[in-house]
């Protein structure tokens, strides 16, 4: 992990306001908490704000969420800088979070990283067309399907350099490939079909 800072001022929009739809959603979210505990809604609201801003959290959005919840601005900034799922600088439309923790590395995450470097560039660099950016993250909890990446909200698992390139090609062409394991495998069931509970299947 590195020190996480807000994006430089030239990238920051002047203001932020939820769209009418998101506003209504946020009010419903706040209402889930008992009176006086509205601050608890901060993570869903920041998450929604990030979604609305195209995958990152501008300073104005952090401030707006804090104001909506009646919090000191610093309290919202603490949360936004604590959780790495909040991006403090702009990201590409196709945002690749590449798992670089031990199981994925043992299963070939370094190859995927090389693909990212070649096709997209350095970590957190956005391609000139704004399509791609990538970042190495800690374990995403899908070790059984290692190596894997998260692209926007979906997991793409059991990758090889080739299948990963194909997925990026699809995104570049404006399509969304099917998430999940990219080999012949049902979710995280054993590769090549079940190895246990076969009797149960027959009866």
């Amino acid at each position, binding site marked *: *992990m*590195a*020190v*996480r800072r*807000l994006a430089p001022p030239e990238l920051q929009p002047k203001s932020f306001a939820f769209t009418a739809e998101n506003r209504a959603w946020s009010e419903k979210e706040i209402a889930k908490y008992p009176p006086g505990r509205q601050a608890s809604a901060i993570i869903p609201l920041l998450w929604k704000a990030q979604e609305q801003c195209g995958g990152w959290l501008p*300073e104005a959005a952090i401030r707006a969420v804090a104001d909506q919840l009646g919090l*000191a*601005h*610093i*309290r919202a*900034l*603490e949360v936004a*800088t*604590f959780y790495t799922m909040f991006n403090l600088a702009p990201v590409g439309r196709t945002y690749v979070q590449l798992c670089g923790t031990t199981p994925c590395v043992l299963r070939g995450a370094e190859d995927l990283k090389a693909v990212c470097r070649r096709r997209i560039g350095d970590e957190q660099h956005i391609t000139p067309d704004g399509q791609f950016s990538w970042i190495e993250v800690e374990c995403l909890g899908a070790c059984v399907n290692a190596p894997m990446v998260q692209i926007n909200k979906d997991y793409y698992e059991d990758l090889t350099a080739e299948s990963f390139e194909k997925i990026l090609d699809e995104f570049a062409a404006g399509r969304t490939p099917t998430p999940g394991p990219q080999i012949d495998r049902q979710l995280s069931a054993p590769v090549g079909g079940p190895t246990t509970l076969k009797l149960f299947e027959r009866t």
Partner: protein
Amino acid sequence: MSKLIVDGKEIDVPTEYTLLQACEAAGAEIPRFCFHERLSIAGNCRMCLVELVGSPKPVASCAWGVRDCRPGPKGEPPEVKTRSPMVKKAREGVMEFLLINHPLDCPICDQGGECDLQDQSMAYGVDASRYRENKRAVEDKYIGVLVKTVMNRCIHCTRCIRFSTEVAGVPELGAIGRGEDMEITTYLEHAMTSELQGNVVDLCPVGALTSKPYAFAARPWELGKTESVDVMDAVGSSIRVDFRGREVMRVLPRTNDAVNEEWISDKTRHVVDGLKIQRLDQPYLRERGHLRPASWSEAFQAIAARVRVTRPERTGAVVGDLAAVEEIFALKELMDRLGVKNIDARQDGSALDPAWGRATYLFNPTIAGIEQADALLIVGSNPRREAAVLNARIRKRWRMGGFPIAVIGERADLTYSYEHLGAGPETLADVAAGRHAFADTLKAAKAPLILVGAGALARPDGAAVASLAAQAAQALGAVKDGWNGFAILHAAASRVGALDVGFVPGAGARTAAEMAHGGVLELAFLLGADEAEVAKGAFVVYIGTHGDRGANRADVILPGAAYTEKSGLYVNTEGRVQIAERAGFPPGQAREDWAILRALSDILGHKLPFDSLIELRAALFKAHPHLQRIDEITPGDPADIARLAARGGAPDRAPFRPAVDDFYLTNPIARASVVMHQCSALAKGAHALTAAE
């Protein structure tokens, strides 16, 4: 109560105690960084680890309750060890981790010599470092003109964050990032706005937050230390004045649970540079419109010449906000001997009169008593600006819950929520008459507190407002057996003492406000009165410390001693008599004010009967015996409040104004201080000239 064995010694402590408190009760010393008695428990520094027999790991004693300890297998009390090998090893380990990222810059660190980390690593750490990797580097943050940051040194105890959120009530500090990248900052490095922010410097156990005005000025071991009291407001906070040679280097708080707990306001702490600037260090005489340096005898002769030709009815004396009781008493004695009745210490025009009785001008419930109150009505006051430390006490009570607060007067951010009832006396009349919903709240309370600000009384209808407030206190049950909730919050340190010695106009004589009118006075004595208007044409004798408004207006200037340069009694707003001790000597030819008055009296042919401060105090105590009970309060008679209520009067409809507009510039010392002017400019919204250094 719950039994516990600490280091083999059995003790009985309340069940709600933490292990740390229990260990301290047993006499064991527990090192700590994040834990602080007056803040919430964080439990993140791990320095207070102790061994709890039966627990596989050492436990953080600050965050472990006595009631959470299990008894031994045979039902014996839980056993805690604070000196076992496990504890020693745990402390050494914690200390080693804390020091991993802590720079070895003690020789250039302002905390050096009074640093918890230094002391505790000597006491509990190991002698050498095993760490060979790079240390973490953190950018320094700009958080205002008073607090300097060196963030490499931060050990993430979060005391500063908890203080600003809980005690100061201005949640501006926070921790961004996480883990080793955690950094303490304000939102986008805005300056802090709390008037108690200087306290984070005292709270910081390391040198991450240090005093900016005091940066690199002195080392703690070269400073002399004098225990004194503060005169910046009427709270009379307990302070320690640190000086080197004759220069006051800094002011720190002393713990005094009855008054300031262990906080002081920024004005108290950082006004010290004002003690060196604009000082009057020799007498001056005005000749042909210009002030020229003069000798003491020239100055005295000029005054004597004036006194001889001026009738007593055309002479007056006004006492300012910083005067000690001794000099007020000496001036009163001198004026009595000259036959002068136009004397007044209420230069703001306050209506309070000692003739009404002492209970009518004291903060009767006492400052510590705020915590016993269960409802509060604030009338014409902004306690945050008039008495920041007292406001922290109100906030402390409010945080305990069940403390409805209402304000009549200016709407302002007081750091706690309140109901705003109205702006002027008519609302107070409504509440007193029970025509307001909040009146029922006060009536239902066991110990309602009615806080009346100095601003509500310093107006032409002040007497009527005081009576109205007393009526409200009577009607709403604020004055009863065992509880006197009628509280006057003064803004001037000298005021209660001056009222106690009766420095108010005699029968038919002029008040300070009347003396201000042109043509009333021919000769005026100002004892540090810089906020008072003085009538044009009058010959003004100014005894004071700073070249402020009073001195600019003066015809003769007699240089006096500031509060750190004399031993003096001050009576705070509660009526608590406190003694300020001398930390240094006044500059140049300046003298202690009582001695100036004593010398002047000789020249004027009315020699005052005391030759030393001891004799003066003896005379003072003879006339006003309650003043000799230092650090004690002689309570007023609650019946006075009933009599005040009966006085009646018709207040006008003007809205209340708080007594203090600019918190940072209320007196001549503060107005001379560069730091206070910077704070004032920041508070007014001007951008700081320096960003992060």
